[in-house]
């Protein structure tokens, strides 16, 4: 028996609409997690793993009292800004590039070899370069987010366009539609579920990347906060930061999911 998880793993959008878990299960699942955590902290001792209660207290105090310059929500907001910048640029670049790859064979043939090579370099391997180029700050973290978020958007968009039933552009041509109109009014809307699958993967990839970038070369943000916790040996600060990271990621994913249903009214009725 597996719990469904809200992060899509495949580029095929066939089942992304029904991955939400019903409320009673959310409560049961979280409660079970807290219980296991509590038992584990009793076994290994609070120095290595503080109890859920201790972490909750730290979490609350971090929300009011600044640590490393900002409160916990402040750090989250700071990370979100960097994430948002990188992610937005990734969407603005990735979707058109994916459309071009999917709709125009010669574009795909010209750029795919380079793209395939680049996308096997992990985003984290770009961090040193980003710091050398842009310094340890906002810009390089956003850049890392971009690097992490753009490949799934390009790939899913391309796959979505390529997988559109070939009869649809044919029918559009027959009705007098030119290539540009067929792309914008048929191919892209029909590929939208796949595009959104890529965007959802990009959301989580980007969010993970911003935390990693802040951990290595940050001056603020949740990633920077948990590194501060590590340096001061405060496990409950580290765990509080991790909880904030997880919760924020889940919320962003939820928002994107709702947004995707707004954009594709024709998928709602299925």
């Amino acid at each position, binding site marked *: 028996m597996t719990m469904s998880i809200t992060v899509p793993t495949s580029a095929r959008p066939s089942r992304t609409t029904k991955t939400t878990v019903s409320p009673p299960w959310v409560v049961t699942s979280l409660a079970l997690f807290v219980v296991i955590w509590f038992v584990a902290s009793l076994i290994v001792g609070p120095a290595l793993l503080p109890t859920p209660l201790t972490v909750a207290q730290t979490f609350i105090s971090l929300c009011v009292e600044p640590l490393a310059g900002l409160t916990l929500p402040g750090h989250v907001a700071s990370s979100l800004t960097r994430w948002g910048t990188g992610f937005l640029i990734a969407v603005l670049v990735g979707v058109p590039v994916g459309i071009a790859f999917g709709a125009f064979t010669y574009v795909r043939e010209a750029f795919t070899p380079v793209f395939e090579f680049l996308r096997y370099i992990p985003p984290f391997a770009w961090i040193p370069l980003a710091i050398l180029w842009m310094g340890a700050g906002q810009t390089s973290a956003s850049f890392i987010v971009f690097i992490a978020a753009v490949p799934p958007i390009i790939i899913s968009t391309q796959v979505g366009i390529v997988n559109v039933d070939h*009869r649809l552009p044919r029918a559009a041509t*027959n*009705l007098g539609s030119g290539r540009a109109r067929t792309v914008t009014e*048929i191919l892209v809307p029909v590929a939208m579920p796949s595009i959104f699958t890529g965007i959802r993967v990009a959301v989580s990839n980007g969010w993970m990347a911003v935390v990693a970038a802040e951990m290595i070369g940050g001056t603020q943000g949740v990633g920077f906060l948990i590194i501060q916790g590590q340096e001061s040996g405060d496990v409950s600060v580290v765990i509080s930061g991790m909880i904030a990271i997880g919760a924020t990621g889940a919320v962003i994913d939820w928002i994107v999911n709702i947004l995707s249903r707004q954009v594709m009214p024709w998928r709602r009725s299925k």
Partner: protein
Amino acid sequence: MTNASGSARETLRKQEKDVSTMTEIKLSIRGVRKTFHTARGDVEALAATDLNVAEGEFVTIVGPSGCGKSTLLMIASGLEDPTNGDIYVDGSRADKPGPDRSVVFQQFALFPNMTVEQNIGFGLKVRGVQKTDRVAPVREQIANMKLGGFEKAYPSELSGGMQQRVAIARALVLEPPLLFMDEPFGALDAQTRTRMQDEMAKLRSRISSTILFVTHSVEEAVYLGDRIIVMSARPGRIAHEYRVDRNSPWKSLAIESAMSDPEFNSLREQIWQHLHAN
């Protein structure tokens, strides 16, 4: 305008019309050949084929699968290129596919992201017809095709028969001089299919389009066509041709009743024998 000149003009027009239906060729398929390149060498899907279709004529093409009948239709519509040969519409060479040569596909090919209304109106929108001016023709098609109440529905919410009606409406709204139908009822269940065949016969009397209709159903070909082209396979070519008198009494019957007519049956028998002889 006096009565005399009016009736004279009428007579003249009638003559012109008679002459035109006798001689005016709407669509001319000339020496069209199609070869597919495969790993095992070239396959001739369609041998050099000639076919003339008169203005207003309803031509059905029937044949076994692989006889190239759909290929012929796609080439005639401009959606596929022939290996050799040319397509002429109204006497001039036609190259680009377009709404003057409308196609109704077997698998409907409706746009899933658009409502029934939007699907039907798409061709008009492409043509540059303003939104307010699209309402009336779209509404007319919806009424004619018995799609009332489903204007805002998406294709995925419709039955197969309704989807095909939307596809036909989407083509007809453009009042295409030429209408190509590629096994349009092939994907429907038997009952829906029969109903659509009856509706197609009625529709035909309402519209002025010249129609080329591909099917693998002999009954459908006989029932709907003014002329029936029988094709054979390997390579695909026109093997036989039959003309049906448009005024045959069974032509005005529903297909189920028409099928018990002796004339209908003898025609069906003959065509069956050709298909089996292959």
